[in-house]
């Protein structure tokens, strides 16, 4: 069974935010809720690099472990989803998530956050696939349509890869080898030129 994963190739990501708005548009995510965001380290300095992050769909997911109402579940493809009808908006998943993936439509006092929203790997939620209710609450279920996440499909430089973990790891490996600057060939690759692809 395919295990869905994201990889963001920092050598390629140009911080164009295409992935971010692709997600917004495909899933009609409201202002203030950001299922995906792009973070740049070393901004404005040589060595600057960006990566795009969303939910990592962790195998031992902290969010799932702390949820007081146990509304998370995992699909056979390893996608971590949750049920908004059950979610109580307590925010615990966001405290636990190492990556800041869970989002809330509001940040009000009295702990009023609304229901948690996060990246679904474009796999919708517990409602019937492609139903109005599913789209309304979770956005599109692209996996059920045989497509991959909108953010990865539209990434401007193909930095963001999303899909079967094995396949995307292969793509990245090929790239690293092509760059001739994989861990195996540090230094030498640049000195001698690249292996012919």
């Amino acid at each position: 069974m395919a295990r869905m994963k994201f990889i963001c190739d920092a050598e390629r990501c140009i911080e164009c935010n295409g992935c971010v708005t692709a997600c917004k548009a495909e899933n009609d995510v409201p202002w203030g809720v950001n299922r995906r965001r792009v973070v740049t380290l070393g901004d404005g300095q040589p060595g600057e690099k960006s990566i795009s992050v969303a939910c990592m769909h962790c195998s031992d997911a902290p969010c799932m472990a702390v949820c007081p109402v146990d509304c998370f579940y995992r699909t056979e493809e390893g996608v971590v989803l949750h049920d908004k009808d059950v979610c109580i908006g307590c925010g615990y998943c966001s405290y636990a998530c190492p990556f800041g993936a869970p989002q809330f439509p509001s940040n009000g006092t009295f702990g009023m956050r609304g229901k948690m929203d996060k990246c679904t790997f474009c796999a919708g939620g517990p409602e019937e696939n492609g139903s109005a209710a599913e789209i309304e609450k979770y956005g599109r279920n692209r996996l059920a349509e045989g497509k991959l996440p909108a953010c990865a499909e539209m990434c401007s430089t193909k930095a963001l890869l999303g899909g079967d973990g094995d396949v995307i790891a292969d793509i990245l490996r090929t790239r690293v080898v092509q760059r001739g600057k994989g861990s195996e060939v540090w230094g030498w690759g640049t000195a001698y030129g690249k292996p012919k692809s």
Partner: protein
Amino acid sequence: MLLTRKTSAANGASARSSGLVHHLARGLSHAVPTIDRRAFLRRSGLGVGAGIAASQLTLVRKAEAAEKAPATGTGKVEVKRTVCGHCSVGCAVDAVVENGVWVRQEPVFDSPINLGAHCAKGAALREHGHGEFRLKYPMKLVNGKYQRMSWDQALQEITAKMLELKKASGPDSIFVVGSSKHNNEQAYLLRKWLSLWGSNNTDHQARICHSTTVAGVANTWGYGAMTNSYNDMQNAKAALYIGSNAAEAHPVSMVHMLHAKETGCKMIVVDPRFTRTAAKADEYVRIRSGSDIAFLYGVLYHVFKNGWEDKQYVNDRVFGMDKVREEVMAKWTPEKVQEVCGVDEATTLKVARIMAENRPSTLVWCMGQTQHTIGNAMVRASCILQLALGNIGKSGGGANIFRGHDNVQGATDVGPNPDSLPGYYGLAEGSFKHFAATWGVDFEWIKKQYAPGMMTKPGMTVSRWIDGVLEKNELIDQDSNLRGLFFWGHAPNSQTRGLEMKTAMDKLDLLVVVDPYPSATAAMAAMPGKPSELNPNRAVYLLPACTQFETSGSCTASNRSIQWREKVIEPLWESRSDHMIMYQLAEKLGFGKELVKNYKMQKVKGMDEPVPEDILREINKCVWTIGYTGQSPERIKAHMRNMHVFDVKSLRAKGGIDKETGYSLDGDYFGLPWPCWGTPEMKHPGTANLYDTSLNVMDGGGNFRANFGVERDGQSLLAADGSHSKGSDLTTGYPEFDHVLLKKLGWWSELSEAEQKAADGKNWKTDPTGAIIRVVMKNHGCHPFGNAKARAVVWNFPDPIPQHREPLYSTRPDLIAKYPTHDDKRAFWRLPTLYKSVQEKNKDIGKTFPLVMTSGRLVEYEGGGEETRSNPWLAELQQEMFVEINPKAANDRGIRDGDQVWVRTPPMAALPDFKGMKVRAMVTERVDAATVFLPFHFSGHWNGVDLSKYYPEGAEPVIRGEAVNTGTTYGYDSVTMMQETKTTVCQIEKAA
């Protein structure tokens, strides 16, 4: 206890509780609201537009529907292929439309240009289907407020006023700023519209974008366009980006470059800022803004010194390189280079070495070079470097000039230019006759529409319309000052000298905005200025145009590929397409019939609109000069339907038959990049890389154009013997073809009798049947425009050999003394234009305004920004106008990251009550301590005050901020009137 669910399961409801209990429970839980996406938007105050919408039910059908319940694919679903309307990369998009509502957007993996990829703007394109913040109906400014009116009334009042102005002050009293956002058909029609109205006073964004490139490059080797393509950059072994921030401005182009990098291409970025593009480079070189010529000569110095130039190539194909060489070796020694641009010898040597040792090497430039008073010279210096290295006309090499708007290339080619008719036909009577014949309109009638003598005189430029209004009448080179102005798809905050623009706006008699968004023009016009400057008779109208997704037509990407956009949805609200508006205005102005003689009409919303395909066919019939003739609507559409057959690296089709028409795509280049010679029937494949002698002309090969005579200073301007495109019957250089040459060569008989009759007395550009082109190319493998040398020395320009000259506002008096600017000009594009007097007056400006101020782009916003700042998906990503400032400069001024600061520039110093531009400080190493950078996409704040109340109600963009062009200074290119937006000066202080 992990729960799993099959994605494929038809009903994937939570597995925990089942059956009745489950249903009950779910019903119950529905009582507790989950997040309602659009409703949330509305509640958070962003959806003001939607609030209005509810009360205007008749108008809102589609837009509202787009806001309402999600589409689930149960209605009638259509997929429309269109092209992103933001930048010149030309990314294809599949729009999914359900029951007439644009519900989704899918990537087009087949597109050889973008392979499904999008930047933020392209990925957010679907918001155009919402249009909450659009201008919804025609409006008029009454007592400082915009009031709704009917289309009929608006058209009536506007045309009446136009005719009144024409009568009183002549047709040249009106200036029409057209748009690079228009598709080819609309851009072309607008130029035709202006000619039939009787004026050359029209222009569009290219003026303030790549005009210096177009003029500089065309005068160097023939055509003012990107020579190769984004795709071809995959073949490059080295790439030098100078003055281009492609990662933000042309993001999807980077997919090709990064791939090239992975296969060994070396990437160099030269920019005053360490940009996101620089972050991807192998070498980053920081230069002082405005000093590109010094840097390029610094590189050339090493090229010449080490004999790295391609001697054979230079000998065969370049004119005047020896003169340049002398100049460079004498004047641009490493010390001089370092003095001017700040780059040391080791670095220029390294760059020269990378470019020379890794050929083919390509060079990319963009606004960092063009937007200067010496822009035309800067771009030519870049051309010279590439010519010296023998990179032009080579796959993997070339001058990859990244153009701006989605259709700026097309609008430049066939659109509203003040100095030419479509296809760069000059304003000679012969050209007008050529077009009069195509249009089926009497030449003499057109001539009478013009004021006497004005038909052949280039009009004013968009960069200077302010002066057309404000300048003393006796100093301008036309009868009347400008009294009426159309902003037809153009923002005001994209032109410099915003403070004076406000005065000019107030002085006008007529101001018309034709735009899907009210644009900053609306707010600026409504904002109270000095009462004494306000023309009491001024009339301001806003007309809602629809976007390119509500009509169809073709657009030309930066690589000259032409793509067809299908209509995605019907025009939203009360908007109408630009060509419909042109036709309706023409009807009322009395030249409706002449305008649309060759076109069929179609009904849109019950009204007549010229069929875009017919307009394109008319273009195909007359624009021979640049080969806009082979791209019939049928061929382009076949390309759009069969993108998968085109190779991503070469853009060439490998086989492929279009199912719908049976058209064979084999051998075509994607989008038939112009020149696509001759008639569509000739089946020229288009030209992927210009001037490439390694290919036959019928395979897209070519050579430099013979456009500047055959001889200069006793030297031949034609290519050397043996230098010609593959398979050419003529193996020497040769001039362009006309009936005389054809007869001389004995090829005349290859024309049919009818063709001979039509072509007699004509040249290849005016032969109405295209037969000369066919015979020359198909039968003899020659190029209709001749085979000549490129010019390193452009003797008809103010600086035949590019010279560094300091900007008018420079912080370096020492360099002003050594590299002074031009002398003032009396009448230049109808206006007096100042150089030396401004520079002299401000030579010590650095004492009070010590920071170099430059401006440019953010990936999320585009141009003046009203369109993109009205898109919440984009607006969320850039919520505040800012200035990038180096930590040192900030610390010296007591400014910390995130502080509000005032940015002040010299024009503001003259106004005592003008505090400046209030923006947020972003303290960063991106810029050096002497330079600051501001994005130019903001508007809607003025002197620290939010102008939202001056927009039509509910139509102000989501995000507003200070416009940098409020502060930019005087300064224009000495050939094209390009405005100086990249190098000026400012001072910054912390806001209290």
